[in-house]
């Protein structure tokens, strides 16, 4: 079984190599700093490996929690829906779904927060700052 720390280091290595490869075509010293950074990252990753050998040898299973990934996915859909549905409607839907998913079963708490949040956002962003919050076919 490969340790997650090793997978992480392989990923860092690949990114660094990609930076060096892409930098090759830059002329007029434009490649110097990115290449220097990538090489430094590779060196320090190796040094970190030798400094924390015990961590890398550890076969302790890490419990995977999917909640951040689901919240990230919901946030992703939220940003897309802002452009489609409009900011305020999407925000209400996002807040209800995400807090319910995270375990807030008391709907009063959710709606009470929304009653404060939405008017605050409207007054502050739309009326006071006069910013153009994205509008879809709703508000």
């Amino acid at each position, binding site marked *: 079984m490969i340790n997650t*720390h090793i997978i*992480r280091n392989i990923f*860092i290595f690949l990114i660094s190599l990609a*930076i060096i490869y*892409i*930098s090759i075509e*830059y*002329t*007029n*010293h*434009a490649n110097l*700093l*990115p290449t220097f*950074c*990538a090489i*430094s*990252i590779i060196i*320090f*990753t190796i*040094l*970190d490996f030798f*400094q924390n050998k015990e961590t890398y040898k550890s076969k302790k299973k890490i419990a995977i*929690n999917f*909640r*951040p990934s689901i*919240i*990230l996915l919901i*946030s*992703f859909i*939220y*940003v897309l829906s*802002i*452009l489609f549905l409009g*900011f305020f409607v999407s*925000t209400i839907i*996002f*807040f209800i779904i*995400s*807090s319910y998913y*995270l*375990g*807030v*079963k008391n709907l009063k*708490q*959710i709606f009470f*927060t929304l009653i404060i*949040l939405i008017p605050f*956002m409207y007054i*502050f*962003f739309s009326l006071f*700052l*006069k*910013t*153009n*919050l*994205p509008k879809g076919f709703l508000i």
Partner: protein
Amino acid sequence: MYIFEALSYFGNLFSLSVLSCLVLGVLIGLIIGAIPGLSPPMAIALLIPVSFNFPPTEALILMVSCYAAGMYGGSFSAILIRAPGTSASAATAIEGFELTKKGKAIQAIRISTFASVLGGLISGLVLLLLAPPLAEVALLFGPAEYFLMAILGLTAIASISFGHIFKGLISGFFGIFLSTVGIDLYSGIPRFSFGSATLSSGIGIMPAIVGLFAFAQGLELSLSKAQETIGGNSKLSWNIWPKFNEIKKVKNSLFRGWGCGLVLGIIPAAGGSIAQWIAYAWEIQKSKLGDQFGKGEIKGLAATEGSNNGSTGTSLIPMFTLGIPGGISAAVILGALVIHGLQPGLSLFKNNPQIVYTVMWGFLAANILMGFIAAVMARGMAHLTIMPKGLLAPLIIIFSIVGTYVNTNNITDVWIMMGFGVLGFLMNKYHFSTGAALLGLILGPIAENGLRDLMVVSRGDPILYTLQRPLSIILLLLTSIIVFYSAKQFKWQKKNKKIINK
């Protein structure tokens, strides 16, 4: 002579219009500063159209008070929910939030308020009384000094890595790499932009900060139980005024923080964003046995908060006296100055002393007023720490998204911010330093441009050129001292770890 002249304009402050502008500026600054993604420069820019209706003195007072309060307002969200409102309060989030988790949110806000108000006042007094002579210091900074200042700032990475020095360095170099994304100013070559127009203009500091700290914090909170709170079950105290014992404990940290802020504020392009990290690193170097840096150390908070507001007044010195803005906020205020028909430079002090000195007095008054208004606001905002994490996580995500969008009206910045959020979440999980990455992103362009300018002005002999400049030698010595102490501290930590393991 100009000291007496400056004092003679104090009375101008006491008119209804000036006082109203002061209150309005402070209120707007505090609210905007506290929302992640919304920055003081943005607040000041939004105030420019409003200021057209006011005479120049009132208009400029509105802006400088918004600037001072905005800088401080960023610390509220940094301390309470680890979502820094401004780039200058990113370091505050490290110790501030740890203190909040220990149920010491109000104590953290007390010290932050004291450090910020007094830092702003000292900085304002320096601006009022010593602006013209200190402006010459800013002129001493050439490419060599900028490059060395960036290197000095980068040495802070070792200190803020908290024992994971190589991971800190990896994070720092990754941050510097990210700063190279966009069109290279010297060759005109777009680097790592992959044909994207947004990436061609580089990665903005604001989406990076909001992502690395605020959005990542939203994801982190989603791991907890819904009804848990950040501050545990601690009761909120009403006492916002700091106690004598608390101030006594952090007095040296405050002086170091204010010192960093005052000096770095004068240097154009440095300011609070860099001063906070240098002050924080200095504080860690000075740590004693029993100090808990990275786990909620009030001394670290005092230093960072003292430094960022300590830089606010002095960052206006080159703007008023030379027409060189010390930072983005100062650049926007400079624009407003010109719009109102005023010419920055020493002639401003000769031709319009009543305006320039009244504005400086206004800046001082804004710092005092900010303390009082913050005392009222803090109690309300501290309720965030007793809010269920199940509600707080979506709220942080919503404000991160809307704050980033409103800042540039560009949805691509929101995607970049979310990318940084995922990166920040993973970095925290594997003990990489988000602070070091941010420091690299801020200092990368200063270091690169400084080095490339240095190569041009030194005609290929940068070492000889640098060694001929006294200010460069001072910066070199400072960097060497920090590297020496960092190495010593690293050895000491290693030794301690061995003893503990035994």
